[in-house]
């Protein structure tokens, strides 16, 4: 099977620091790929390179087999790669519907949309409500309530729903459970699996090993600026993974997973 | 009589100035004004430059960035001291705060003359060359009362002043006008404490058109039958006129003002302003420079006008509807003397 998103020989240097050192990367259709690695291993540079937030110095990235070179997250987004940032990138004072459509608002048809630039609020609200209902998030009462009135888990839910609604090819989740309590984390993990079951592959960056092992199909272990190995969570334990990450353990080559 | 005296003093100073022209050659004089945007100070600077050139002196000009900017003026005085200037002409923005710096300059042997605005206390400077603002107010008050004749007893007066802080010039013009109109003053150092029912009210204008219009509208709302309007200066008068025009009252209200700037004098010619008291910034600066030249030559100190604690640089009433007993010149004559 061809990877939907593929990186080869990616290099990114910041002055004398090499954040990415000829790194490879593969994401297959329909899977949840977890990316783990110690702080400073370069996993956020890797994610930024594939989501357009950083332009790699060397190497190629392919989406659906076609080479791409994003100059900004907007371009990546237009190509169908949605990212849920750790900060969520939402405007707290604006409504759920406003946030879901930020930067891609729908305008009314005809004169009012074309000349008066009027937004089609009804359509945007219906779409937002439908998406949240689909993902079981309709404990949220009012689609027009400000995002800042939501709980942390609900905000994360809205951010994931936004990514799921527009991310046609790939969804990247950066530490989605880091700021959440036990119950809310639970809910977000279910949400992630729910999104995957719709066929959209997910890249999950997380420090939380139990969460990673619970939902990931494959785990990309990042160390010293490159892919150290890819492991199957069913065949390896969490302590193995931590061992590889920190260099305490050397992985056996596993040709199946790469 | 007073005018005559002032005239004589003028001539005297002018003569001493001319006599000392030789010895003042090459000396430096400083002119420090409140701002260099107000045409009044622009004209003052022109006068000083002309006089300095005539006497072969060097003139260094300084100005604050806005009215009230004391810091820049202090720095200017320090520069002048360092520069070895013989004299400083200053229109102080903050009349109290500047005193220490002025003293430093005097200690350094520099003659300091306050222009236009007396310092607090007035004797902090060696001399003050200024308009008699009380007299300026008095003239327009007398003119307004004389124009109304018997109706002055039933006048309804709007007082458009400068600022809530009641700077000296504001108080002097306001109180001068009221005295000239025949209204009994309360405390002559305070605006707005008069009991006379003919005064509809006081409001502040910031001395500009917008302030003048708003203040006029406010007072018209208090009493729509106002028929005499005193204004602190001509821009405020122009604003008040617009407010009156908006309610169709522009032709049955007397507006009086102080300044004598060219647009103001033209407004007198066109009947917008009934009468205005003209002051002479160019003269102020010219006389100031000459006094410094005289001091540099032989240590002559400028003397105040008789009966006043400052040197009166003169004020004239400009109107095209003269009133018996109030000396005035026409707007045509005023145009020749106007500034800005």
């Amino acid at each position, binding site marked *: 099977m061809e990877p939907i998103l593929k990186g080869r020989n990616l290099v990114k240097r910041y002055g004398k620091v090499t954040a990415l050192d000829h790194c490879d990367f593969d994401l297959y259709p329909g899977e949840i790929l977890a990316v783990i690695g110690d702080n400073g291993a370069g996993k956020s540079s890797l994610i930024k390179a594939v989501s357009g937030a950083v332009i790699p110095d060397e190497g190629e990235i392919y989406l659906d087999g076609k080479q791409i070179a994003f100059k900004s997250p907007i371009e990546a987004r237009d190509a169908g790669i949605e990212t849920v940032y750790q900060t969520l990138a939402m405007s707290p004072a604006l409504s759920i519907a406003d946030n879901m459509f930020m930067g891609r608002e729908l305008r009314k048809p005809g004169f009012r949309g074309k000349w008066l630039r009027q937004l089609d609020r009804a359509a945007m609200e219906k779409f937002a409500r439908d998406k949240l209902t689909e993902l079981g998030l309709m404990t949220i009462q009012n689609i027009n309530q400000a995002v800042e009135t939501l709980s942390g888990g609900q905000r994360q839910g809205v951010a994931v729903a936004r990514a799921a609604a527009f991310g046609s090819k790939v969804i990247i989740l950066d530490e989605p459970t880091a700021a959440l309590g036990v119950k809310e984390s639970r*809910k977000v993990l279910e949400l992630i699996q729910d999104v995957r079951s719709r066929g959209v592959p997910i890249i999950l960056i997380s420090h939380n090993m139990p969460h990673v092992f619970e939902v990931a199909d494959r785990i990309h272990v990042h160390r010293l600026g490159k892919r150290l190995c890819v492991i199957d969570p069913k065949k390896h334990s969490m302590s193995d993974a931590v061992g590889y990450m920190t260099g305490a353990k050397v992985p056996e080559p596993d040709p199946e997973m790469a | 009589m007073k005018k005559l005296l002032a005239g004589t003093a003028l001539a005297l100073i002018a003569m001493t100035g001319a006599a000392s022209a030789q010895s003042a050659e090459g000396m430096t004089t400083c002119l420090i004004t409140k701002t260099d945007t107000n045409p009044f100070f622009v004209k003052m600077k022109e006068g000083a430059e002309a006089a300095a050139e005539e006497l072969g002196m060097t003139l260094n000009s300084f100005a604050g960035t806005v009215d009230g900017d004391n810091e820049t003026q202090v720095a200017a005085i320090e520069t002048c001291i360092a520069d070895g200037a013989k004299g400083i002409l200053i229109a102080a923005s903050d009349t109290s705060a500047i005193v220490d710096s002025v003293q430093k300059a005097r200690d350094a042997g520099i003659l300091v003359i306050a222009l236009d605005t007396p310092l607090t206390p007035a004797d902090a400077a060696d001399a003050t060359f200024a308009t008699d603002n009380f007299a300026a107010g008095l003239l327009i008050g007398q003119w307004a009362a004389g124009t109304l004749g018997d109706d002055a007893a039933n006048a309804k007066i709007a007082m458009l002043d400068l600022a809530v802080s009641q700077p000296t010039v504001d108080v002097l013009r306001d109180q001068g006008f009221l005295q000239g109109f025949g209204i009994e003053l309360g405390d002559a150092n305070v605006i707005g404490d008069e009991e006379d029912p003919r005064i509809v009210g006081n*409001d502040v204008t910031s001395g500009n058109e917008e302030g003048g*219009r708003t203040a006029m509208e406010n007072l018209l*709302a208090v009493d729509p039958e106002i028929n005499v309007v005193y204004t602190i200066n001509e821009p405020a008068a122009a604003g008040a006129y617009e407010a009156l025009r908006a309610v169709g009252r522009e032709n049955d209200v007397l507006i009086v003002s102080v300044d004598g700037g060219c647009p103001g004098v033209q407004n007198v010619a066109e009947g917008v302003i009934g009468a205005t008291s003209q002051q002479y910034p160019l003269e102020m600066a010219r006389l100031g420079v000459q006094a410094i030249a005289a001091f540099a030559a032989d240590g002559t100190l400028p003397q105040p006008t008789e009966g006043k604690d400052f040197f009166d640089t003169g004020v004239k009433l400009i109107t095209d509807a003269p009133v018996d007993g109030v000396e005035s010149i026409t707007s045509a004559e005023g145009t020749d003397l106007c500034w800005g």
Partner: protein
Amino acid sequence: MTSQSDDFESVVKVKREEAIAEFHDDHKGFVKKLQHALHVTPSLVPLIVLVLSIGVFGALLGEKFFSASSMTLVLQQVQLVGIVAAAQSLIILTAGIDLSVGAIMVMSSVVMGQFTFRYGIPVEVSVACGLIVGTALGAVNGWLVAKMKLPPFIVTLGTWQIILAANFLYSANETIRSQDIRDNAPLLQVFGTTFKIGADEAGQGGATLTVGVIFMLVLVAVLAYVLRQTAFGRHIYAVGDDPEAAKLSGVNVDRVLIAVYALTGLICAFAGWALIGRIGSVSPTSGQEANIQSITAVVIGGISLFGGRGSIMGALFGAMIVGVFTLGLRLAGADAQWTYLFIGALIIAAVAVDQWIRKVSA
């Protein structure tokens, strides 16, 4: 899966209800509801204050204040501040501030006047030039803020002084008199054109509206529509709320900022045109306090200085509150200082309310 997750939520909810005594909850409920209502409709506070202050002054002063002529007089007196405050609102919604609004206003009016009278350019062209100059000056502010990443306060502190100085140098502080404008270029005074409704035969009393007042009201209505109903408006809020988030969500933050500052410049240029209508003449010394006055109106109008919150109607109400206090206190015979004192208190109260509203949660 879904029902299971709903259970987690409901467990939390049930527990919370148990923990809080019932009457206590009711009491909090009202305050919370008020807080929520204010959060959803931020211009409610200034509207209430406006209505109350009109009511109080009306009761104290009777007909003299509570009349069509006095009420419309307030509108005439606040028209310039109202127009500039509308522009200032846009900037403050992006979490910026513009100290140069008054300078742009005056500069534009001077360009309109001097182009007509000094160079003999047709007045229509001069007005267009004035509007272009205003827009360009605003765009420069926007470019410095967006592209050079300089703080708006610093940028506009600088351009404020530069524009004012340029204004004085260019105009030589020369006033163009009302009479000359009326005779030669009446278009410059078009904003001063008045309409009287219900005046008596002598033309006294009744409501008086000017083109400037109508312009202010239409402008606020149009901007309210833009902010609420267009993507550009939503982006203004998003940029003010969290520029990083807006950028990541796909908003071109730089373009929004430059557009907002340029639009503000254009509105200020219109204010400059209205200024000529209001004072009759073209005077380079006008409008020096427009920046502070507009910020005052915006803050009293409940627009957060931290950006992203508030409604432009609030700025209009804020300007009118200041106008009502000024006229009301003058009619009551109070000294002018009292106006400043009350306005100062209102500013602090408004910011306190803003902070309180921000604490709202679900």
